[in-house]
């Protein structure tokens, strides 16, 4: 039953996104939910990291890595949408605008998380160190955004959505947001399962080696 549910949510998300694209949704309707979704997943990863440090249950570690990986994918999507949009407004692919610059800086933080995870072999140590790093990284996000915003005051730029009106287009925004959420949910669930199967496999391998 859970398998079917997962397939349905994935297909529903993809259909919603295809519908909004075909209807001609503005890039902002993809950009905004992707960025907000990525911040939200970073927060969710910190909460599950804290839960892991408190309980030492590996399911929280799986949840936190799934959140961060899917969050990074959303962040990549948001950077892609942002640069295309930037190009249409200013004629340049990268104009050091506050949202894009801070998104990139925070994205690099979480790339560090994945590299750290890859470098630690022992499962408990890997989960603990990743959890600690995810707490440090999440606390950095508001400071990075503030710093980039202050830094760009020197050469202010118009807001990316300045002068745009989106009256009557809210169904498209709801459609893309729901589509992205459903897809993210599907990916997170699949990734958590994959992580847990991997852990089970590793533990079986260790048991076999012990004999």
């Amino acid at each position: 039953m859970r398998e079917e549910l997962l397939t349905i949510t994935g297909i529903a998300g993809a259909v919603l996104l295809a519908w909004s694209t075909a209807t001609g949704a503005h890039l902002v309707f993809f950009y905004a939910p992707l960025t907000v979704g990525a911040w939200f997943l970073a927060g969710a990863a910190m909460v599950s990291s804290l839960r892991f440090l408190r309980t030492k249950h590996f399911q929280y570690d799986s949840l936190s890595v799934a959140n961060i990986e899917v969050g990074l994918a959303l962040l990549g999507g948001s950077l892609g949408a942002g640069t295309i949009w930037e190009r249409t407004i200013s004629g340049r692919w990268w104009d050091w605008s506050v949202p894009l610059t801070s998104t990139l800086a925070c994205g690099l933080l979480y790339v560090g998380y994945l590299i750290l995870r890859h470098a630690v072999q022992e499962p408990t140590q890997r989960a603990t160190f990743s959890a600690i790093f995810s707490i440090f990284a999440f606390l950095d996000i508001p400071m990075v955004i503030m710093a980039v915003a202050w830094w760009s005051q020197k050469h202010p730029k118009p807001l990316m959505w300045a002068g745009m009106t989106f009256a009557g287009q809210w169904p498209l925004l709801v459609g893309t947001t729901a589509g992205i959420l459903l897809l993210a949910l599907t990916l997170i669930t699949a990734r958590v399962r994959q992580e847990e199967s991997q852990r089970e496999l590793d533990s079986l391998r260790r048991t076999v080696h012990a004999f």
Partner: protein
Amino acid sequence: MDLLRQIWVVTVKDLRAELRTKEAINASFAFALVILLMFSFAFDPSDDTTREISGGLLWIVFAFAGTLILNRSFARELPNDCLDALIAAPISSSALFLGKAFANFVLVLAVEFMALPVFGVFYNVHWTSQLPELILVMLLGTWALTVIGTIFSALTVNIRLREVMLPMLTYPILVPALMGAMLLTSKLVNGIPIAADTMEWLKILIGFDIVYTAVSLILVETVLVG
């Protein structure tokens, strides 16, 4: 009172070990000189634009040179299982962390103060014109570098590719602090004092230091013991 004494003992131990061998501090200072020289090839040192970005160059030098010292901080304890002995010693993890952080702070600051006159000469910058404020910024920026560097030095001490991992993890986290230190230093070495518009950067530096010192003190036990 006991905590202060424990911190002092660890700091003095680390400083004594470093001053006897001078392995990290010499390498770090030589490295700082090399980068300063390399930058002068990349940017025309007598150019006004270079002077405007000089604070940025200086902090890149400090961050790179500082990493060499910070990498050694916990790695030095690996031979003869000294790290296990330190963790088993009847002192709290926070005392161990603060002791090491203070020792690193002194060493990184020493390299910075040795590199500063060289930088002034190479780039023809009057870095002494706002000295008290510059020292304040250097103290705050260096503490940010040291506190993050020390906790991640403890985190990466036992993992593969330790030397690569430390800068990979610390630099992205240090972005807000380094931005503040760079912008303030650029102004100060050009003789512009801290004013209302640059005060925000000082606040972000202080905030960064407080937040990450607190978080590191809370998490250091988990980092060291698991």
